């Protein structure tokens, strides 16, 4: 199935179509392959540290007047949910007989997770990163190189993520025979959105079991931050059929507003503010101007800073199964400090958006809420320190 309702599809250059077909075929083959599943579970357990706990947040719960549980993806090896996906795709690459993986990265999170999977599975790994991001994220570049990945700074264009994506595609279209392109989110042409969701849905699968075990009931809501949306889809998927569980995707409200003259949106809220369009391989909700030129997005959280969103989320939002909300930079920063102080857990700025949304929830309507804590905040402490000091 290449579409989720009206969204998705495969809007990709002809040169990649054969590789996408091969990937689609391979995905459906391993779906029924117990051996693959077992091998992946083994890596997720022994290497990535799954299952991650579902942690009750007592101080937060008391203050808000409803029970809050945190799904601890911050405890996955590497500090975020990203590895669930890169391990899965790395194994899939091996299944396809490809011994080289490539990836693009913005701030470096997906690149780092790809480098980990590459090293753990003994795959040659090459990461493309905008030269500007390479300068800004020197430690992440060092991390990737420590794990044996080649990091290629991309000097073209705006020297950021967009150019890194183009460069990775360029590599892939010349190297599809022996190379798999590891996309980092539930975006891109089919079968990527469904494949990445499959690898990330371990989050919701575990959380659902854990909450039933601990509370004997399903939650009233599952809340997750949403940029491209891989942690959100991963947290939601297992609950989609549970009609009484509200699913809330919290997007980055940034500082708000759009400057059409310079084609910049001061937010990344594609589900809340965007409209149907075609971006990077799929039809989805995107931020663009009236001619269809894609706007640059913004968020204090680099992992949410994206002008589109996974097509499956666009479909779930359009059909009313999930609710989209947005939280600005300021509220997210407050959420970051609040959880650190109240629970002794420093959340990623991305996850802080989901945490900030809790403050807006009505305790009359919710008794039990799961927040997907998609990553830890160690990577963000310097940013917050530089923005706000010690306070």
């Amino acid at each position, binding site marked *: 199935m290449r579409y989720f309702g009206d969204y998705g599809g*495969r809007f990709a*250059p*002809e040169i990649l*179509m054969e590789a996408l077909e091969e990937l689609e075929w391979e995905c459906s083959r391993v779906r029924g392959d117990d051996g693959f599943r077992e091998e992946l579970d083994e890596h997720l357990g022994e290497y990535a540290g799954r299952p991650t706990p579902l942690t009750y947040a007592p101080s937060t719960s008391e203050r808000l007047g409803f029970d809050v549980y945190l799904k601890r993806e911050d405890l996955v090896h590497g500090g975020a949910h990203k590895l669930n996906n890169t391990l899965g795709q790395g194994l899939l690459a091996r299944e396809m007989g490809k011994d080289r993986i490539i990836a693009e990265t913005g701030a470096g999170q997906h690149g780092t997770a790809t480098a980990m999977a590459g090293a753990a599975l003994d795959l040659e790994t090459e990461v493309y990163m905008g030269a500007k991001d390479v300068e800004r994220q020197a430690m992440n570049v060092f991390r990737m190189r420590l794990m044996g990945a080649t990091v290629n700074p991309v000097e073209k264009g705006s020297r950021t993520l967009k150019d890194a994506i*183009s460069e990775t595609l*360029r590599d892939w279209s010349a190297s599809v025979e022996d190379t798999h392109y590891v996309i980092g989110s539930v975006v891109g042409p089919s079968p990527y959105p469904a494949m990445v969701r499959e690898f990330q849905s371990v989050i919701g699968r575990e959380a659902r079991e854990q909450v039933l075990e601990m509370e004997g009931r399903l939650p009233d809501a599952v809340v997750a931050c949403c940029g491209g949306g891989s942690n959100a889809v991963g947290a939601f998927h297992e609950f989609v059929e549970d009609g009484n569980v509200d699913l809330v995707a919290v997007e980055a409200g940034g500082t708000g507003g759009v400057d059409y003259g310079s084609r910049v949106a001061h937010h990344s809220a594609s589900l809340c503010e965007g409209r149907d369009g075609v971006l990077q391989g799929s039809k989805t909700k995107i931020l663009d101007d009236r*001619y269809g030129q894609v706007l640059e997005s913004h968020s204090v959280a680099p992992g949410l800073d994206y002008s589109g969103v996974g097509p499956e989320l666009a479909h779930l939002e359009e059909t009313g199964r999930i609710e989209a909300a947005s939280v600005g930079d300021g509220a997210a920063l407050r959420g970051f400090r609040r959880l650190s102080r109240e629970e002794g857990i420093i959340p990623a700025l991305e996850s802080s958006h989901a945490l900030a949304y809790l403050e807006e929830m009505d305790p009359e309507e919710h008794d039990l809420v799961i927040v997907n804590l998609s990553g830890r905040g160690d990577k963000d402490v310097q940013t917050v320190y530089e923005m706000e000091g010690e306070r």
Partner: protein
Amino acid sequence: MSLEEAFAEPVLVGFVMAGDPSPGESVEYAEALVDGGADVVELGIPFSDPVADGPTIQRAHERGLEAGVDTDSFFEIASEVRDRTGAPLVTLCYYNLVYRRGLDRFVDECEDAGVEGVVIPDLPVEESGPMIEVTRGSGVDVVFLAAPTTGDERMRRIGDAASGFLYLVARAGVTGARESLDAATAGLVERANRNVPGVPKAVGFGVSRGEHARRIVEAGADGVIAGSVFVDLVEEGDLAGVREKAGELRGGMDSARNES
């Protein structure tokens, strides 16, 4: 002359980006292409996220946007190119621009401006249903691409949808001028002729020298498409160079014809 008439003889298709480096100058570059020997002008609409293009053409997208070109001004530029050169026009544009405009309106505006074909690099045949529907019975062709990785069966499927001409991608990889042409090109042309009879084939991606153009025609193609090599010259501000390069490619094609 129409696109169909042009393909009676081997055709040279030359690419420039609308608005690169300014709307007026891009018209002059298009004129230089035709003066030098191009039969068809492929005029790009600049886009913010041109994922299927190489670095050279990516920069042209950026310059076009910088010059303020949008879909409105593109059609003004296209009309002017058509008026000044009389050459058939096709456009290269990404699907979101067409989608946002509305497919019907976009195709109507192409007809009004004399744009006879659209090349949409991120619209493979399986997603092209709505576009094919809208262009049916219009004077606008949907030009599809086929690559060395495109299998025979898929090529036939593309052939069923294709009109105008089939754009053969000479080698794996995105656009960019190359020093030598892949030997597989001849095989690709042969395969396309076998699987997609009745639609002219033009070969592009990496064509930068007269020698390339000659070999493509000798391989049995109906046309040669050159883009990056012209965009490089536009970037250098070399108007005369564009004319000369078009002449060189034209010469290469003509020498092939003379030998056969």
